[in-house]
């Protein structure tokens, strides 16, 4: 393997990594507030479909991507209302949300399947992209990839440094204490869940509008679930999520490249790699003490002030 191969491989990593990263950061926000958003697969599907459909209808990519964000956020808001306000069981409601997202994407997008459109083009920084090895990775990406990194940093700041983040973490750690401190537990959870949907929607929009310039059903292909595992790997820290997402992106980007360069491998068995890697990572993360100390203490519990046992 030569430098050029490595360089172009690395250059293609972000395309695979960004949807995972956006979904993971969204999930981290949601889980830090104590809500497991199991339906993230649905947010991605809605985002991907809405971005493609609106772009095809309006001709505007910006509108399309905005629609993807809005579609993800809307679905998540519905889930949030069900679990936060109406106290539906989080796991089952998450699965139902996933089904609604996948189903609605299929139903609403039935006229847009397989219609290609002009997607987002990569930025052109001229000669910087020619820097060996890292040039393509760092300087020849699409604007959304840079935006995603900024959003991740912003998410990290919000959680770790802002007063809002302090309240959000308190809600996920100990909602009763947060409530006594005057934090509106439900509102914070709803906000976090909706943000998770918006980021998931953006990740989905990235899949259709950047990574493939077309929308097809089932294009999400379990990425939401990989993101769920990534959150555990990242110990609920957005910065570590970048590492995890790029690790997975690297594996995913490697497969087509190996084939293209004539490497003879059983394609479907190779395709198992990201999923198998996810399980390995999950097991490793679950065994570490650090993970147990990082998991929000009240994750998955519904809180009601006047509960008496």
């Amino acid at each position, binding site marked *: 393997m030569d430098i050029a191969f490595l360089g172009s491989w690395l250059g293609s990593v972000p395309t695979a990594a960004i949807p995972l990263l956006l979904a993971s950061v969204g999930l981290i926000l949601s889980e830090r507030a104590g809500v497991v958003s199991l339906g993230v697969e649905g947010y991605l599907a809605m985002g991907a479909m809405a971005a493609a459909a609106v772009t095809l209808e309006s001709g505007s990519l910006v509108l399309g991507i905005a629609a993807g964000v809005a579609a993800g956020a809307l679905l998540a808001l519905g889930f949030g209302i069900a679990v936060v306000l109406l106290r539906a*069981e989080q796991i*089952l*409601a998450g699965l*139902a949300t996933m089904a609604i997202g996948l*189903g609605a994407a*299929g*139903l609403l997008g039935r006229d847009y399947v397989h219609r290609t459109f002009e997607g987002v083009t990569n930025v052109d920084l001229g000669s910087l992209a020619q820097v060996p090895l890292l040039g393509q990775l760092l300087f020849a990406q699409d604007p959304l990839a840079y935006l995603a990194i900024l959003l991740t940093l912003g998410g990290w700041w919000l959680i770790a440094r802002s007063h809002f983040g302090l309240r959000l973490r308190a809600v996920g750690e100990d909602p009763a204490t947060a409530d006594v401190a005057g934090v509106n537990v439900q509102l914070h959870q709803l906000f976090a869940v909706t943000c998770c949907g918006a980021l998931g929607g953006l990740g989905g929009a990235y899949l259709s509008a950047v990574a493939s310039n077309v929308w097809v059903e089932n294009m999400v292909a*379990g990425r939401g679930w990989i993101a769920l595992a990534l959150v555990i790997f990242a110990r609920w820290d957005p910065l570590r999520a970048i590492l995890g997402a790029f690790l997975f992106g690297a594996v995913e980007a490697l497969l087509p490249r190996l084939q293209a360069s004539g490497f003879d491998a059983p394609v479907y068995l190779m395709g*198992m790699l990201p999923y198998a890697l996810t399980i390995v990572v999950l097991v490793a993360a679950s065994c570490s003490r650090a993970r147990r100390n990082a998991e929000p203490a009240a994750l998955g519990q519904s809180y009601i*002030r006047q509960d008496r046992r």
Partner: protein
Amino acid sequence: MIALPYTFALQRRLTLSGRRGVGTFVGGLAAGILLGLALLVWAGVPTESLLDDLFVQVFISPQGLAQTLTLTVPLILVGLSSAVAMRVKFWNIGIEGQLWLGAIGATAVSLYGVGPEALRLPLMLLASALFGAAWIALPLVLRLRLQVSELVVTLLLSNIAYLLLQHLLFGAWRDPANSFPMSMQIGGDERLALLGFGNLHSGLFIALAVTLLVAMLSERSRLGFHAAAIGANPQVARAAGIPVGLTLAIMVLLSGALSGLAGGLIITGSEYRLTQNIGWNMTFSGIVIAFVARFKPLWILPTAFALAGLYNAGSTLKVFYGLSDAVVVLLQGLILMSLLVAQFFAHYRIDMKKEPR
């Protein structure tokens, strides 16, 4: 500051009356179904043909009924699979993976001619159950030994199972005589007998017998008693000396075996070959069936039948109104969500009080 004249407070009901429980459940179900119907009308299905497409054509007309009953067979098994796992609070969301492995197992027995021909069919079904159970063993071990959540692992194993299926169909098992990725058809004596009612096959009796067995197991056996205790409160069950790990393992392996058997019945009963198109959405359908049936094995029969009707109608909707399979998934999602939300009204009440001046 403007004070509201009323204060609201959410209160958990201290007791749950049976009638309110049933009422909210039926209400939630009805709301979900109505919402789904409205959606279909919005998507272009004429109101006047709803009854015909969704009811008469799938439950009344002999041809439709036979088709629905055929679809019911695997749905019963995945519903049982989900209910059995849920009984010990194990989230098996990899039913599709276990089903595919079951189908692969059954096909393998046929392709490699395992065992004497007279026993081939039972061996195929046995293999499907064993393969299904094997596929859930990894998440089970990870959960018991390392406390790894089974949620993500079971699901990811489904994706891996599907890739394995494709690997076989595009490779070693591909029928050279066919342009589609399919295995060769299984032999005539490897098939379940047809009942002379459309494509309905004797797998229906197997499904019914298995349902009875699972019902007996859950309601009447020591295993089921222990499982119910573990599902309700593992801490108390442990303190009572119940073998928690062993019971959990048996129930979870049974869940995998039931999913696998569903795959076996699809191969031996209706498809006669391994294809890429079997088993889709079975995980979620299993969960919906189990939930709507309140995890009671006998209630799974009518629930699976009703959902099979929906799937059957789905193919009509696809042909006539261009609605993809996604619409069936969407309807199931809406019904489940509606039921979950309805439980709120059974478990909580909102206290409203006028604030004294």
